[in-house]
């Protein structure tokens, strides 16, 4: 039983980071109806940005993720203006191809610049652990959990309360009427795309200390992010956060009872089941 609860705790620790990734994707889909197949690639760019800061300035990844996230925010806005805005009114077909192309360019540019070597950051924290009662957890994971939760909560309140958040929700509800009410469509879309990318970058920075870094590291996260977003109901930001936690739990429990190699299969089967029986998501209302 203690192993069950330990696995749940581990699952939630990972799940909070997943939530961050999923919320970014949901934000982009909700506001723009664009399915971002490059999400994992942007996460990878965030990891490399944090790594470069660590490597050249000896900046701890748990601080370095902030400037990295900021850099990705600007980068995301640029990508929006140059590549996403021109396909804003095209079919999903074209948008999917566009983001797939962006993902390929990012991954292979990383390959060109950093080669295919596996890289690692060695920081002190990763070797310490925290004990609460009978449960133990890696100190680095607890710290990244805390930071991720802070971001998730911050984003939730930002979207729910702020004026910009209201504009985001207005566009997601009706992209035709919202501009008539004086909302600048291009600016709000650019902002939300940039914010979604920045969240992926932050998640990348927080993942860096516990993963090996290589150009293809983001690939699994694109598909995982889709699983979360579909679980939570496409376009629902709080749904995606819950989807992230569910995914973390299911992976952790699958690893415990069936072995690590089945975790990703369970993700996809969950995904297909939700798509076929409740396409609006487990927690979601019908959006798209």
């Amino acid at each position, binding site marked *: 039983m203690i192993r069950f609860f330990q696995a749940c705790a581990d699952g939630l620790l990972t799940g909070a980071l997943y939530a961050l990734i999923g919320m970014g994707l949901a934000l982009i889909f909700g506001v723009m109806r664009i399915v971002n197949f490059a999400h994992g690639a942007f996460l990878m760019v965030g990891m490399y940005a944090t790594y470069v800061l660590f490597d050249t300035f000896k900046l701890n990844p748990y601080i370095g993720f902030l400037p990295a996230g900021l850099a990705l925010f600007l980068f995301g806005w640029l990508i929006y203006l140059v590549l996403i805005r021109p396909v804003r009114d095209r079919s999903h077909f074209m948008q*999917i191809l566009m983001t797939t*192309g962006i993902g390929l360019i990012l991954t292979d540019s990383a390959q060109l610049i950093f080669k295919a070597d596996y890289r690692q950051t060695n920081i002190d924290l990763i070797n310490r652990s925290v004990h609460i009662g009978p449960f133990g957890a890696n100190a680095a994971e607890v710290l990244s959990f805390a930071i991720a939760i802070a971001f998730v909560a911050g984003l939730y309140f930002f979207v729910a309360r702020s004026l910009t958040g209201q504009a985001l929700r207005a566009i997601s509800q009706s992209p035709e009427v919202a501009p008539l009410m004086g909302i600048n469509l291009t600016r709000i879309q650019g902002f939300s795309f940039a914010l979604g990318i920045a969240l992926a970058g932050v998640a990348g920075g927080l993942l860096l200390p516990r993963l090996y870094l290589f150009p293809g590291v983001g690939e699994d996260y694109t598909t995982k992010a889709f699983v979360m977003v579909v679980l939570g109901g496409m376009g629902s930001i709080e749904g995606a956060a819950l989807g992230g936690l569910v995914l973390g739990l299911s992976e952790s429990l699958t690893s415990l009872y069936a072995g690590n190699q089945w975790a990703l*299969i369970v993700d996809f089967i969950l995904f297909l089941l939700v798509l076929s029986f409740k*396409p609006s998501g487990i927690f979601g209302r019908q959006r798209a």
Partner: protein
Amino acid sequence: MSLLKSWKFWVAILVVLLWARVPWFVRNNYQLQVLFRITLFAALGLAWNLVGGYAGQLSLGHVAFFGVGAYGLALFVQAGIPIWISVLLAGVVAALFAAVIGAIAFRLRGPYFTLATIAFAEVLRLTATNLNVTGGAIGLTMPSLFVGRTFWRSFYLAAVVLAVIAFLANYWASRSRFGYYLMAIREDEDTAGAVGINTALCKLQALLLSAFLTALGGALYGSAFQFIVPDSVLTLEISVQIAIITMLGGAGTLLGPIVGAAVLLWSQEKFKNQFQESHLLIYGVLIVLVVLFLPEGIVGGIERLFRKRPRLPSARAKAQAAPGAAV
């Protein structure tokens, strides 16, 4: 017979004969292998075109059928079934998989459909990696369809035959009632359903045919390279490659996939030497350029240049919104 009087028919026969004669001019095995890949991917693009081009359903899961073809051939031969019958059986099994995928995925539209096809292919890849029957991550040795000195020449010819079959399927789709149904579904699925087309059945039939042809391609590919692992014949990259080839050449056009395969794979070979591991960069750049500037693809763009009547503004706006709309 009117067919025999049509100059297009005789030109097509001539092109195929020349195409099949290429190995007699190329002595180098490496070049022959490149030509084999171009021809094979032209066939795969044509097979994808039935679903992605004419019916307008963007599947990024076609590698599932490709992989089932390759693994099916290996496993049926292991079970003692004659090799050419195994190839056909692998195609039939892929069509069965397509029926399952279609039953679930075709109820979904737009990005949901694409995501579901990816998820299916990924489930197959991960299952093949984890099961013992499929050799796990170590993979399987493939039975050889051809042996001896004419190895690559035979594989090349087999690819030409497959491409011709796939082309005829496309030709049929571009002229027949069935093809018009598919195009109606692409343009507006709800209206197509409202005028009495059984949209679910039409999409499924197109997918079954497409999956069967794709599986034959997978069997050829696996056998030619003699060895398969999940990451070589079930990777998402191949799905993307097939879709890109068709989009680059022109989705929903007859010659598009052939032109796309030639342009993409040839430039990939050129870039392989310069960028080595990053040769996929050219894909990314090509995709972005095609989406931005050539949404109808190379053949679609040329056809528009030579179209005699100017298009109505509304039709043109629609063509930009729906990429496969070029006839």
